[in-house]
């Protein structure tokens, strides 16, 4: 092997390994480092563990956050058909408009509960995480089971109960 290719390989190895040291420091001490404990939850995408911690079922929400402001993260058509009484529409697709309405309606003290269609939708978690960040508020939660759970608990008929 020529000296030139040895130098090339040495440089390549150093370029690949060198960043490990600052990466380690970043992983340990960066104020916004990834949440390693949460990431270890196998099978969940990053952020999902954090989002899962926000999920409360309807009974818990009613007990602990009776005056919560409700946010509907479903598509506009579903919101128009029916929604939780008093809920505001807010989706990631049309964030600015919905967010402005929320800021207007929110007194800064009430908890916020976000829901989407059902157990398997992820829109409510995404919206809740973003609200936690944008409002810098830790009292944003997700209704486990979403709109389906609300309907089941309140007997609200499909397509009715709009306000």
């Amino acid at each position, binding site marked *: 092997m020529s000296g030139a290719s040895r130098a090339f390989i040495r440089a390549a190895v150093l370029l*690949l390994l060198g*960043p*490990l040291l600052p990466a380690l420091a970043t992983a340990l001490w960066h104020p916004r*480092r990834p949440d*390693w404990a949460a990431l270890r939850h*196998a099978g969940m995408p990053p952020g999902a563990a954090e989002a899962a911690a926000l999920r409360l079922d309807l009974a818990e929400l009613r007990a602990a956050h009776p005056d919560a402001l409700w946010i509907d993260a479903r598509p506009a058509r579903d919101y128009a058909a029916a929604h939780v009484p008093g809920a505001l529409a807010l989706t990631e697709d049309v964030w600015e408009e919905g967010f402005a309405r929320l800021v207007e309606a929110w007194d800064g003290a009430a908890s916020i509960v976000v829901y989407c269609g059902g157990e398997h939708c992820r829109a409510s978690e995404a919206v809740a995480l973003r609200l936690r960040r944008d409002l810098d508020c830790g009292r944003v939660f997700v209704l486990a089971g979403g709109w389906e759970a609300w309907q089941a608990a309140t007997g609200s008929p499909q397509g009715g109960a709009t306000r």
Partner: protein
Amino acid sequence: MKPADASPWTRRARLAALLAVAAILVFAGATKLGDPARFAVEIGNYRLVPPLVAGLLAVYLPWLEIALGLGLCAPRWRSAARLLAAGLLLAFSAALVAALVRGLDIRCGCFGGADGGGMSAGRALARNGVLLALLWAGGLWRRERAKDC
């Protein structure tokens, strides 16, 4: 092409091509370092690697980009940095293609928050193509330089 025939201006242009890529790599790495947790989520959105790996990549890749960018600026490191940077860009492009093919509507995550919400996968791919072309052009310059050593 015989590289030794290149005029000084051609060589300068090729060096400029490499330095442009270097600047973009350093910038991309630096912007991601502001919020590694968010970058981990963005890597996770591609659904290509397990969450823990996404977290590890989120703290490693920004520093790798910065190292490769700085490596492109130093004659002794340039050829290795150029090859690795091309490999990195190809890997990023493969991830973007994988996201496009599977219909994932995700942020590119290429520049932390500095690109105002993320560029589309198609545009990011086009940009990667330009960067790869610049790296390739810069390599023609390197060969004649190696003769001098």
